[in-house]
């Protein structure tokens, strides 16, 4: 990365978490969009959409590799990470007192971790 200077002397540095969050938000979005389209296409073209075929989308294996579960995990972790960045941005915009913002951010993390654990438990016991 080229060093950006403001004026002659000041070197602008940073933790670059803004850049990282920007990239994470976009790449998780693309992953979720692709997963959604795959699920929709599957639902349209599967001979009959019933319990067995629905479950198979999340539990199919390739050889011994649990590809359905791995892909669903990847998609759901993307949901959680994407939601964390988005909801954190909402708190940063509207919740100004530091204490309130901290509480809301912690609750957001608990909410998302609970969702991930709940989902993982269901998914990996298929």
């Amino acid at each position, binding site marked *: 990365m080229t060093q950006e200077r403001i004026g002659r002397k000041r070197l602008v540095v940073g933790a670059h978490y803004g850049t990282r969050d920007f990239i994470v938000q976009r790449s998780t979005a693309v992953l979720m*969009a692709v997963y959604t389209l795959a699920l929709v296409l599957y639902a349209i073209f599967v001979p009959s959409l019933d319990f067995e075929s629905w*479950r198979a989308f999340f539990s199919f294996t390739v050889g011994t590799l649990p590809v359905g579960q791995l892909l669903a995990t990847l998609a759901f972790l993307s949901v959680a990470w994407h*939601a964390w960045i*988005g*909801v954190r941005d909402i708190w940063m915009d509207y919740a100004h007192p530091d204490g309130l913002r901290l509480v809301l951010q912690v609750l957001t993390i608990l909410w998302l971790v609970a*969702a991930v654990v709940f*989902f993982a438990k269901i*998914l990996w016991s298929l």
Partner: protein
Amino acid sequence: MSDSATKPRPQFRNLGLTDLMFYKLPPAGKASILHRVSGALLFLALPLVLVPLFAQSVQSPETFATMKEWVSNPACKIVLLVLMWGYFHHFCAGIRYLTLDLHIGNDRASSQRSGALVTGVALALTVVFGLKLFGAW
């Protein structure tokens, strides 16, 4: 620039809730705030509605039947309809942001047009899938 001095434009600073009712957002602004609202909605629904429904749908044929029973409840259908709109809007507006990131349609006219477009497409999709949900076809 010259006529701006003679004709003062309304100014909105430190928007309060009362100002919001009179503040007219352009189409891209509407798509943007709805993107935020729909995202927050989906976040709240995640462990409350979406994961529980998913759990019921995949565990066993019996729970699958229970899930279908839940979903046939009109109250549940209304919740799902709102969440469907949330997903459609967040999806469509999200695609728009990705294209804007690629510097496609960044000029004012086309970005306003695409803002109105994604809002409309999301509503149209909600109507189509809503009719399906409520058994119109």
